[in-house]
């Protein structure tokens, strides 16, 4: 029995989401990624004596949007100071929410696993400054000194904490992917993992199969992509299983994921041995959102991913196959659902629109960005034009895919010009008829067998036709011409 079959993995995730406000959480400095170092700073975010923080009302609204989208209860809340001595926060504390967070008890449904993940809380806090460790190795250990940029210090964050309800790397990845789709839908965040707008910490533990008590957990930091998340969880779970199997025990600790080496390693105890000494931030007032306003914010939320998937599912009649369900998920995941819906509105059959959206378009988006979730910029009108031609039989499915691929690599290509260039002008009925005459005379034995009921030979003829025409013949048209001929 493989070691993986002897243990159960338990995962809880903490996702830090930067809010897309204009300014920081407690001061009017710009919330802007990629500015020159230390240009968006002021006495408040530098923690200079005498400065006083004031809460950004839009950040509170965004936190309520996120909580509502995750079915949380929105509650009165207070800010606390989390004290620690580290230069990423010049005040020597981070303002966060502790025992009274703004959002509690939410949930998130995974699209392709029958599982609802409980959201324990989503609280507001300020981001820390960015430290760059300079030294021979470039990593924290062995650094000679560090450089600090406080542009990020004070950027509003919502930290979304799940219950330990996930049990595999795949589930964890899907949770983050779905959470990201929801966050983007609320317009409270841009969800860009590559810019650090979404950062994930994973709490991982394992326990022997057949036991109930959760094992000792380790918290993995520095997970900057879905790929890192999956790899780190698999590595860490396996490490714990091997340790337990060898009779060792797991020490509760914070571990750092090293993407290049593909391993997690323990951070030295000093880094984690903080005793945060939380206490209420006396410079800020409690938040007690008006419940009517909360309801208004919740009503104004746009259509969320679960509803977007439902909207696509309802385009199709009857029970959806597994692959159709996957197509629906893919289209929503890559923000291609509007492309599909628009195409269907112009009369393209839903199954065709869904297939071309999820197979062709999604693969172009995927190839272009791998893990970074860029929204598809594929020109919607051209997508509709191509699949309309395909649904009318004016181009074959192979031709349609080629056209889409050409447009994917150059959005300025015109469909009509491409059809001209590639010689996809639909053959006239006469040309098809002539082609079939030639095929029958060159392959009379096969034609007789086809007419006698050996239907698989239809593919033989279409193959021959493709060869003669360099793939330009429309297989469907030829097939119906053959069927008509056989009956006649």
């Amino acid at each position, binding site marked *: 029995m493989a070691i993986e079959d002897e243990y159960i993995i338990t995962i809880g995730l903490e996702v830090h989401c930067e809010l897309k406000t*204009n300014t920081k959480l407690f001061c009017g400095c710009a919330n802007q990624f990629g500015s020159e170092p230390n240009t968006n*700073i002021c006495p408040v975010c530098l923690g200079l004596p005498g400065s006083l923080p004031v809460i950004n009302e839009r950040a509170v609204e965004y936190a309520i949007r996120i909580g509502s989208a995750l079915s949380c209860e929105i509650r009165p809340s207070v800010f606390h100071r989390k004290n620690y001595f580290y230069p990423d926060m010049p005040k020597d504390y981070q303002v966060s929410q502790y025992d009274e967070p703004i959002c509690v008890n939410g949930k998130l449904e995974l699209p392709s696993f029958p599982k609802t993940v409980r959201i324990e809380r989503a609280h507001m806090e300020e981001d820390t400054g960015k430290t760059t460790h300079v030294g021979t190795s470039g990593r924290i250990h062995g650094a000679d000194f560090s*450089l600090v940029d406080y542009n990020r210090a004070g950027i509003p964050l919502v930290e979304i904490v799940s219950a330990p309800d996930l049990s595999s790397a795949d589930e964890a990845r899907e949770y983050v992917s779905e959470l990201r789709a929801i966050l983007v839908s609320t317009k409270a965040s841009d969800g860009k993992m590559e810019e650090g707008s979404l950062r994930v910490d994973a709490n991982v533990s394992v326990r022997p199969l057949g036991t109930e008590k959760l094992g000792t957990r380790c918290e993995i930091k520095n997970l900057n992509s879905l790929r890192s998340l999956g790899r780190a969880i698999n590595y860490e779970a396996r490490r714990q299983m091997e340790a337990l199997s060898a009779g060792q025990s797991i020490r509760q600790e914070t571990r750092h994921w090293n993407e290049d080496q593909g391993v997690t390693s323990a951070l030295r105890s000093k880094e984690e041995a903080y005793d945060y000494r939380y206490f209420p931030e006396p410079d800020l007032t409690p938040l007690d959102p008006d419940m009517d306003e909360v309801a208004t914010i919740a009503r104004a939320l746009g259509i969320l991913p679960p509803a977007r998937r439902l909207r696509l599912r309802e385009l199709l009649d009857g029970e959806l196959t597994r692959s159709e369900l996957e197509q629906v998920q893919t289209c929503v995941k890559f923000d291609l659902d509007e492309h599909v819906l628009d195409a269907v509105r112009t009369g393209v059959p839903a199954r065709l629109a869904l297939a071309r959206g999820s197979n062709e378009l999604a693969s172009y988006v995927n190839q272009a960005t791998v893990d970074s979730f860029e929204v598809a910029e594929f020109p919607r009108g051209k997508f509709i034009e191509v699949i309309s031609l395909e649904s009318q039989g004016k181009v074959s499915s192979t031709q349609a895919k080629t056209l889409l691929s050409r447009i994917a690599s150059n959005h300025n290509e015109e469909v009509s010009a491409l059809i001209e260039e590639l010689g996809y002008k639909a053959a006239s009925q006469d040309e098809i008829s002539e082609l079939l005459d030639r095929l029958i005379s060159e392959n009379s034995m096969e034609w007789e067998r086809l007419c006698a009921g050996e239907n698989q030979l239809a593919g033989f003829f279409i193959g021959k036709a493709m060869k003669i025409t360099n793939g330009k013949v429309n297989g469907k048209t030829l097939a119906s011409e053959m069927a008509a001929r056989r009956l006649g």
Partner: protein
Amino acid sequence: MSADKISSNETRHIAHLARLALSEAEIEDFTGQLAAILEHAKDIESLNLDDVAPTRHALPIKNVMRSDEVRKSVNREEVLRMAPETQANMFLVPKIIGED
């Protein structure tokens, strides 16, 4: 922490977390003061406060907020000039891990 008394080691730990260098005499002194504060907290604990709502803030105010409008940041050069050391327009700080 023992049920009723704070130890001088706990005072040392707290002082370390706050990066305070205290003499032995000060440790003794503050241990006594901290013990008195905890003693006072016990006095409050002994009261029946069932009918008293939790105090979230010293003043009866809530929801004090500002609009999300960008205000001018401070002059970077002026701020960096105050720092002991800088490099590439960033604050240069000593090696972070392993320091004591």
